[in-house]
């Protein structure tokens, strides 16, 4: 059974781009359009191996989403990658403090993205 990744972004283009990359590598993908929708999808007990999230989104942004995920005991140590256009050190520090595992500035290179996944996912 393939491993599930939760992809959160308010841009459908970006969600589909990440999904395309991940499904090509054998992952199953669940999409959410913002943090609130993502929390809703996680509240049914589903346990992704990885969460990829944008920063600026309506309803609930990426930093709030990370904080919510870290409150869930089953997902306390799940890797979370921020995928965003934001490149400031200040925001990256906020992401780290919230509990993000890594920070990728858009646009991402699919081949490089899959290499990063191997680094952050437990062997």
């Amino acid at each position, binding site marked *: 059974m393939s491993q599930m990744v939760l992809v959160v972004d308010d*841009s459908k283009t*970006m969600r589909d781009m990440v999904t395309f990359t991940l499904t090509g590598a054998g992952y199953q993908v669940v999409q959410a359009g913002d943090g609130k929708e993502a929390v809703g999808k996680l509240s049914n007990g589903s346990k992704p191996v990885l969460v990829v999230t944008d920063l600026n989104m309506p309803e609930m942004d990426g930093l709030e989403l990370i904080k919510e995920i870290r409150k869930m005991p089953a997902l306390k140590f799940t890797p979370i990658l921020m995928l965003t*256009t*934001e*490149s400031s050190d200040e925001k990256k520090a906020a992401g780290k403090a919230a509990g993000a595992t*890594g920070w990728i500035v858009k*646009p991402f*290179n699919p081949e*490089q993205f899959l290499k990063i996944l191997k680094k952050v996912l437990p062997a």
Partner: protein
Amino acid sequence: MHKQIAELEQTKYAWEQFASHAIPLIPVLTRQITTVIEQTERAALDLILKIRSISERAQKQADYAGSSARMMEPVMDVKSQAEGLASDVSQIVMAMQFQDITKQKLEHVMQPLLQMKTYMESLVANPTAPELVKALNLLEEVERSYTMETERMAHRHAMEGREHVGVPVSSSAQEEDQNVTLF
């Protein structure tokens, strides 16, 4: 005294004329920007479907080449072509993300335009209203809404009256590495 009053009235009239033309135009301009965003998004989503189809065909070719032991040289040629195609697909996926990046940049232009509309409307209705100061402060904070270094740079250069410097078309592997931070 009469001359000064006449000049002030002329100035006021000129500003009212400007505002009466500019205020209705701003939503028109932002609508044009929204239309561009929607059209490029549709085009990007169509392209994703095409790329998925190309990528699946490339994978089938690579699988076939990898599993076949017959006619080794032509098979390796097919495998090499399939790998090249997969690399091209990666580059296309990267380039397509500029739809989202462009969308965000245009949204950062639309927001202050709409703030300017609100400001001008208030200015015409009541030039001494205290809310005007708040609206002006919002306009001064435009730079804070940016998320990308290219936006901040373009803003700084334009404010300083410097010549526009184009952004690089393609990124190198080194630049891509700089875009990744693992905590």
